[in-house]
């Protein structure tokens, strides 16, 4: 079991969460070329090692998180709210 330290709920089993995917994708502008959109939608770095990825606390607070996790050892370095402004809120409430 992987344990994910949800910033809102505390440390929980990963079975409470749903895996999203690569958190570093930047979607291009609407008028960008097909090539750029294909790259953003279909092509992945598929990192072997530490990566930033999204998880949804689907059986908990239902918030989206960005998790820095190793895809080899499953060790987690950091967990943050997906929305950048919510990180400040979480820190202020500590």
């Amino acid at each position: 079991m992987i344990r994910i330290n949800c910033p809102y709920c505390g440390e929980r089993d990963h079975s409470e969460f749903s895996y999203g995917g690569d958190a570093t994708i930047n979607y291009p502008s609407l008028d960008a070329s097909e090539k750029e959109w294909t790259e953003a939608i279909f092509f992945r770095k598929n990192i072997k090692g530490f990566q930033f990825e999204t998880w949804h606390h689907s059986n908990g607070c239902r918030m989206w998180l960005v998790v820095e996790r190793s895809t080899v050892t499953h060790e987690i370095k950091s967990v943050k709210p997906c929305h950048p402004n919510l990180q400040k809120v979480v820190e202020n409430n500590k």
Partner: protein
Amino acid sequence: MTKFNAWNVIKNGLNGQSYWTRQWRDPEPKSSYDVVIIGGGLHGLATAYYLAKNHNIKNVAVLEKGWIGGGNAGRNTTIVRSNYMMPGNHEFYEHSLKLWENLSHELNYNVMFSQRAHVSLFHSPGAKDSVSRIYNIMRLHGTDAELWDLKTLKKKIPHLNYHNSRFPILGAAVQKRAGNARHDAVAWGYARAADTLGVDILQNCEVTGFTRKNGNIESIQTSRGIIKGKKIGFAVAGNTSVLWQMAELGNLPIESHKLQAFVSEAVKPLLDQVVVYGVGGAHFYISQSDKGSMVFGGDLDWYKSYAQRGNLPMVQDVAEAAMAIFPSLGRIRLLRHWAGVMDMTMDGSFFICKTPISNLYLNAGWNYGGFKASPASGWYFADLIANESPHNYVQNHNLERFEKGINIDERGAGPDPKLHG
């Protein structure tokens, strides 16, 4: 290499089994080959075999970082079927099934291919309609397919749970020519047959880098020295992205996920088919090995991973599915479970294609279905490498299909790799 036949079995029986030769050589790497296949799994070995057999290209090396049979070749549930409907896929997998039917003779090695029928249960009228459509498409293309009503199913497999009120069994879609095989024997059989035709199988030979010249890959750095190849093929599903980035080719439409498989203690004959139970997108498949063990598997672990070990929530999930459909397995003990790393692609279909590097060819993206595909994968990958253009069946199984909008998505699940079964 001593051929397996009745005469040799009797002769060695009388001589204390002392005249058998080793199954394949353990050669030192040569400095250069006509074709270097990276990855000594079923697909790599089959490719080397068909390069030598069909295309008379015998100066071939297969590079394996571990040992033959130690990767995904030994980490599957050994199911062979061809129930696909998308153009390209059904012809490809049907060709694979035909190769399976003659594989033991072809390789002079008993791969224990058993056409015991693949029985896919359905649980609602909607599911019946959906599967009927797929199996009708199969029939139109000459693949065997039939529907079993509840009466037939109860006669064939009496001990399924027919009293499940949440997911009542209404019948099954059946492919009788499908079944399973012994996975180790397939790996050893292809290795032995390829070796006999002159292919060098280099184990403990890990690729660590590439040297580029004029846009081509000139040589490969490995843990056993530098090896040159006029043509190079990647057949390393699970780790394709790692090698792809080592060659500085950027991103791929692939995520690596792990899939678990389970083996129980051996019991008396209980199940004479491969049974698939799939409700609500979930997935459970089970068969009984010749030794008597129940061999079964379920879904992915649902998060990206390169670790070859499974996680416990999926063990529970699979055990629950087993109990839902086979309550008689309740007291059976699990002997082993393991995980294999797979290339999950953005549309659930594979790649056998050329790459941006002119002497590099790609075989990747096998999702859940690499085992059954092995013979045809080797067949058409060898064809691509030898003739430098893809066969009609695999002409759209390339990296450009996403940009062109001709995704080959059997499940219609969209661009999320973990959703493709």
